[in-house]
């Protein structure tokens, strides 16, 4: 097992490297040097940037050097000092801006994932054990809608209903009076009141997909002879379903963690813009439209890293659950 984890970790390194190169290319794509933009922006605000200062910045980012040196400097700053460069839009170091946002992003993604499982597993099991019942049809229909309706539409409609029928302003994660307040029970309650929409909307697609997978897997499993044998021996039906077939059916379920977590993080970008959540999404969108290159690059790099880590975690979980993977790929 340890060997597998180590091997998998080593395999992740080239991917992370490729992610960082891609992020760097992406922030280099817009035409013109960002320093020119920066100087122009400062000039617009009536501030003069001296040639000396420009030179110093140029040297700090290695702008007069070939691209690979620039990349090297960028990566070196990140890896050794946690320095992601300077945000020109905010006029402060990128590292001061992002960690809070990334924390919320991760928190929301993990909570949504847990809620997805909480609903998908029992519903999937119910749908499979009560195939073609009324509730099964209802869940199937809901699943199709969940897969088909784009998240931001659902978010808009839910917010509209909450606002017009219940007079609740559900954007963001906190009400105004709690935004900068210290943590307290009331603040946590306020957070919960705001969090249900992002979780519901962000989780709807994943839940629908997982219910379908769980149902299909369990149906395959329920027709196997060992279930028949266990039933013939008079095993309690609930124990029979949950103890054996449900556990086997969970196996492919875990492999979906790999793409569920990254999809939540990446899909959350649009959702968080609509819901104005304090996550990485709106910051990234802003940085991209304002050509705030280092901020955008840092966010893409971090979201990409999260994605790679998500795949890694699911692979390890899968190997832990299923010995065939552990030994088979050796």
């Amino acid at each position: 097992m340890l060997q597998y984890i180590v091997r998998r970790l080593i395999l992740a390194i080239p991917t992370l490297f490729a992610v960082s190169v891609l992020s760097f290319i992406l922030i280099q794509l817009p035409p013109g040097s960002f320093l020119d933009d920066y100087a122009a922006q400062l000039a617009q605000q009536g501030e003069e940037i001296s040639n000396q200062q420009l030179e110093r910045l140029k040297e700090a980012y290695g702008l007069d050097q070939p691209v690979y040196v620039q990349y090297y400097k960028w990566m070196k700053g990140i890896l050794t000092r946690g320095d992601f460069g300077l945000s020109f839009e905010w006029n402060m170091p990128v590292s001061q801006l992002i960690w809070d946002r990334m924390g919320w992003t991760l928190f929301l993604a993990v909570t949504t994932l847990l809620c997805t499982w909480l609903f998908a597993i029992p519903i999937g099991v119910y749908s499979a054990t009560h195939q073609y019942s009324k509730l099964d049809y209802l869940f199937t229909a809901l699943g199709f809608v969940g897969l088909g309706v784009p998240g931001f539409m659902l978010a808009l409609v839910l917010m509209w209903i909450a606002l017009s029928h219940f007079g609740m302003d559900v954007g963001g994660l906190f009400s105004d009076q709690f935004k900068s307040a210290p943590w307290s029970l009331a603040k946590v309650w306020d957070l919960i009141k705001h969090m249900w929409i992002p979780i519901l909307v962000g989780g709807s697609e994943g839940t629908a997909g997982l219910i379908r997978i769980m149902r299909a897997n369990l149906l395959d499993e329920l027709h196997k002879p060992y279930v028949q044998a266990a039933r013939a021996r008079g095993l309690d039906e609930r124990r029979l379903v949950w103890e054996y077939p449900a556990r086997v059916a969970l196996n492919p379920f875990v492999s979906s963690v790999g793409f569920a977590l990254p999809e939540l993080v990446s899909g959350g970008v649009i959702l968080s813009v609509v819901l104005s959540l304090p996550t990485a999404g709106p910051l990234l969108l802003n940085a991209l439209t304002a050509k705030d290159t280092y901020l955008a690059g840092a966010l893409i790099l971090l979201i990409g890293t999260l994605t790679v880590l998500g795949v890694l975690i699911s692979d390890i979980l899968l190997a832990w659950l299923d010995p065939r993977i552990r030994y088979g790929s050796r």
Partner: protein
Amino acid sequence: MSEEPVQAALPVPIEIEEGAESETRIHVATPWQLMWWRFLRHRVAVVSAFVIACFYLIAIFCEFIAPGDPEHIDGAHRYVPPQTISFVDAHGRLTFHPGVYGLSPHRDPNTLRLTYTTDSTKWYPIYFFTQGPPYRLWGLIPSNLHLFGLGPEAQDQPFYLLGTDRLGRDMLSRIIYGARISLSIGLVGVALSLLLGIILGGISGYYGGTPDLVIQRLIEFIRSMPTIPLWLALAAALPPKWPPEYVYFGITVILSLVGWTRLAREVRGRFIALREEDFVLAARLAGSSEWRIIWRHMVPSFLSHIIAVITLAIPGMILSETSLSFLGLGLRPPVISWGVLLQDAQNVQTVALYPWLLLPGVAVVVVILAFNFMGDGLRDAADPYGR
């Protein structure tokens, strides 16, 4: 892991009636005929196919079908709610002719908001194949014939079946024009990613070895990148000075650059499965060229699967364009697409006051659901000998 659709649980026998006649019919039928029959049995998919066909007809003839000019600004009628069609005319008589009542604006003295009340003393009948604002069909053929409208004598009366936006532009006409851009971007984007997918997936599956390894690593890498931030970054890199046609093309290229991997995997899988088949070996022994083996023998046998995969890929493309434009990084006004129209609905306060601004989103949802159902049906039908 089985990702079969729910319907797959029901084995659907092709034989409907017993008897020698129908059995011969099935035995001599071509694969495509079998697929067609199988597809017809999937009711929801057939209905969805019909819906999609209607939407594409609307997109093709949008100038003729839209009752008005989507760019026409009616300053006196901003944020008009959708008008209802009424069969009772101005004199209170029931007619068999659809029509709309006139509108009279009121300004609320407290909130200063403009509201409109229907004026049932005025009633304007709706005519079919009537004259309306002039246009050029596909930018070529000048005409002023519209599918429906109020006719020449009530030309300047408000006729907004789906309401108007903040500039007083007709939502119905705008949604109909938006269909052309939004639906075509799905087709063009899928065509481009299919090209990439068939070439790279084909090389990967047919030759195997090192090219396969390289392409598989590339696919794995692209799939492990977060899609939406990638789109956003690429779309933000498009020069803002580009004319709309360039942006349209740029967005499609971006969507297909990120989206070809699924198709490539599918093509590769099919190639690998077929490579070892006897009929391929037979063709090779008979001296067919590689090119002929691929196009004459292998492609026809997996074409149906590819069509099903394509159908399931189109809604993703449409949704991507909508999301990008919605965020302001995709197409921009004056281009009309559903995503661009939805930009007006970004603010909840506005939506709460003028909910009809969400209607372009309803069009998106209907099209996406229809494509998903049709794709499911096609996927079941693609393998007529299976089960």
